[in-house]
């Protein structure tokens, strides 16, 4: 029997995803029509013998529980939300709910960070884990030398794939093999976490922590994995599958493109078909349109577009490289590109909503999504995708360029390179 644990964080996490995460928890933000974390659930349930998925995080239960119930209905697997009383770190939450995880004696469990996107090769990862008799197996991938510094960097024994060294976000170059935040763990990992926890509790009681962190807070990467390097218990499977983190809002459009691409082989029925093939408007693949969305026959959609439930797209309107969320409406003859249109927002006619893509350079192998800060050194807004928060109104005949509009705003003019509070 197998289980999966997905760490979804909480409202204080994922703030770089604002304003998209202001009205919906980031794990529930739809990418290619499905909540971010549903793609992870889908990858997990594809494994034979997987009987339970546990979502661990510190969002209020009311925000996640209905989703967990819905997922359980759809996939016919036990799916539970376990709410931490506070942020306990990547290993602290795991340890806090150890009895739940160990219940039923699973042979092992997948452990995934909730903000990763990938064509998850979970079967290979689990086979590899069994073959190596590992305590923990890490899915690894190649990064550029420069970008590796933003990730957990791993050094391995080339012959055995054993992890010999681990540094989280080093300040100088260590290795281009990075941690994907996707693991297979044996239940014995709780002995190791338990021992670390006891030591931390001791120090906490003696006041060494100086109140800087919660009792029970443990970081998986620095406090569990790094010390286990070179002990013959941690193995790394390097993979070449597409993989990305979702940090900034810009990475949502990048992830949307890749999930749509994966639909072509895995779920072709989720993709909109071109005119003449049963679909009513012009489609440049890949495009996902919710069946309840209303698209005018003269609209032109794609590539890389997702349109959510109840959304409407008017005559002669063009959407490309964009995500249109639930109940948003875009009037006639407008153009939306490299942008996200929030839930229930309205874009007038002959309006142009445009952002600047920040996709990884496709000509540089192993390049990952950059998540540049909002402002550059001169204090100017870095050009990024345009984000229209929920219930925003963008008037007719205006342009909204490289801007971020927070929810519930009624714009009255063209906006360029601005954040509208």
């Amino acid at each position, binding site marked *: 029997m197998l289980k999966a644990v997905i760490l979804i964080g909480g409202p204080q996490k994922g703030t770089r995803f604002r304003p998209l995460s202001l009205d919906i928890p980031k794990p529930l933000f739809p990418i290619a029509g499905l909540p971010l974390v549903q793609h992870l659930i889908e990858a997990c349930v594809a494994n034979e013998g997987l009987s339970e998925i546990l979502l661990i995080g510190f969002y209020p239960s009311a925000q996640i529980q209905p989703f967990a119930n819905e997922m359980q209905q759809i996939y016919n697997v036990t799916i539970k939300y376990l709410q931490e009383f506070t942020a306990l770190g990547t290993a602290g939450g795991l340890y806090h709910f150890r009895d739940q995880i160990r219940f039923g004696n699973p042979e092992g469990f997948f452990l995934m960070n909730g903000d990763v996107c990938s064509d998850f090769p979970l079967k290979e990862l689990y086979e590899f884990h069994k073959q190596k008799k590992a305590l923990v197996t890490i899915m690894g991938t190649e990064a550029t030398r420069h970008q590796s510094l933003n990730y957990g960097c791993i050094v391995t024994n080339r012959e055995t794939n054993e992890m010999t060294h681990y540094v989280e976000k080093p300040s100088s170059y260590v290795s281009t093999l990075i941690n994907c935040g996707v693991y297979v763990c044996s239940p014995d990992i709780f002995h190791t976490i338990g021992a670390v926890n006891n030591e931390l509790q001791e120090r906490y009681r003696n006041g060494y922590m100086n109140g800087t962190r919660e009792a029970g807070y443990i970081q998986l990467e620095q406090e569990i994995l790094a010390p286990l390097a070179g002990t013959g218990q941690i193995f790394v499977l390097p993979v070449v599958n597409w993989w990305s983190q979702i940090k900034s809002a810009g990475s949502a459009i990048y992830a949307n493109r890749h999930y749509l691409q994966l639909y072509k082989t895995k779920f072709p029925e989720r993709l909109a078909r071109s005119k003449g093939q049963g679909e009513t408007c012009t489609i440049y693949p890949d495009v996902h349109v919710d069946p309840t969305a209303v698209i005018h026959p003269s609209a032109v959609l794609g590539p890389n577009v997702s349109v959510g439930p109840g959304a409407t797209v008017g*005559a*002669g*309107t*063009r959407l*490309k490289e964009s995500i249109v969320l639930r109940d948003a409406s875009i009037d*006639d*003859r407008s*153009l939306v*590109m490299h942008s996200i249109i929030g839930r229930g927002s309205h874009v007038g006619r*002959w309006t*142009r909503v*445009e952002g600047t893509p920040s996709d990884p350079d496709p000509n540089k192998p192993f390049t990952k999504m950059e998540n540049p800060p909002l402002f550059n050194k001169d204090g100017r807004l870095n050009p990024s995708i345009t984000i229209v928060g929920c219930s925003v109104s963008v008037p007719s*005949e205006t*342009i909204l*360029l490289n801007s971020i509009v927070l929810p519930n705003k009624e714009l009255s003019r063209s906006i*360029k390179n601005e954040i509208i509070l």
Partner: protein
Amino acid sequence: MSEEGKRALILVGGYGTRLRPLTLSRPKPLVEFANKPILLHQIEALVDAGVTEVILAVSYRAKQMEEELTVEAAKLGITIVFSHETEPMGTAGPIALAREHLSKSTKPFFVLNSDIICDFPFRELAKFHEGHGKEGTIVVTKVEEPSKYGVVVYDQNNCIESFVEKPQEFISNKINAGLYILNPSVIDRIELRPTSIEKEVFPFMATDKQLYAFELQGFWMDVGQPKDFLTGMCLYLNHLRETNSQKLYKGPGVVGNVLVDPTAKIGSNCQIGPNVTIGPGVVIEDGVCIKRSTILRGAVVCSNSWLESCIVGWKCHVGKWVRMEGSTVLGEDVIVKDETYINGGQVLPHKSIATSVPEPQIIM
């Protein structure tokens, strides 16, 4: 003064650099303003006032102008004389250069700067000039911000006292409108060299109490640069609405004052206007919105594009879902690819634009 033998000198002059990139393809006087070459607006008004001989002071691209205007002259039944400058002669020099033509008779002659658009009052001007009997009359027009111009100061009888360049304190809101009527005697005040009529001739005439001001009624604009060209077009179309409204286009999707050549084609679900001129052979596809713009002969604007305050040059091709604004000027035969945004771009002829230009820029 008899209606016979009236003459006018039009100062066509230089390269028209302020109206580039349009003037790279066509001499400025031939650039169509409200579907008619700027110069023809003036010549036709002169003909209406009885002028039979028009002298064009030209220094550049005279050949193209001669060819096109000779045809027009024949149609109007007048003589057009080209007075060639071998070097730019300023605003007074050309008068001296054309002495031979201008002093043929003792009757006064008109002088015009070629960039001026207004409701030309030549008949009234000639009558006023005759009335005061002095050497010259300047047409003056009222402006809101006189500190940007040179203003004209005159007494209650309209006799000009002085000219003040860019006054810091308000002394007058009347400026020189670039239209004059002068007696041939004025030619003797001008040396045959590059010289300025505003600075080197008029002030002395004013001192001699020989210069009067004629107040222009209605609109006036120097259309020598793109922004003013569009403002002038708005004023002109509004004037057309008041005086000759059957010339304005009526059709589905038209808003306000719009002038459309009969050979232009406009698609369905468009919104054209206010203040738009569409030239001969232009094709506007479905779902296009155009405001405050001029589309010159043979241009194509594809579906779902949005244009405001633009001049689209001859034979340009503007793609689908294009947005252009901010006094964008496309030179002749420019291609703007689908989904591009151009703000305040000045695009030289025969360019193809595939990436957006969000800030004002010259595209070579």
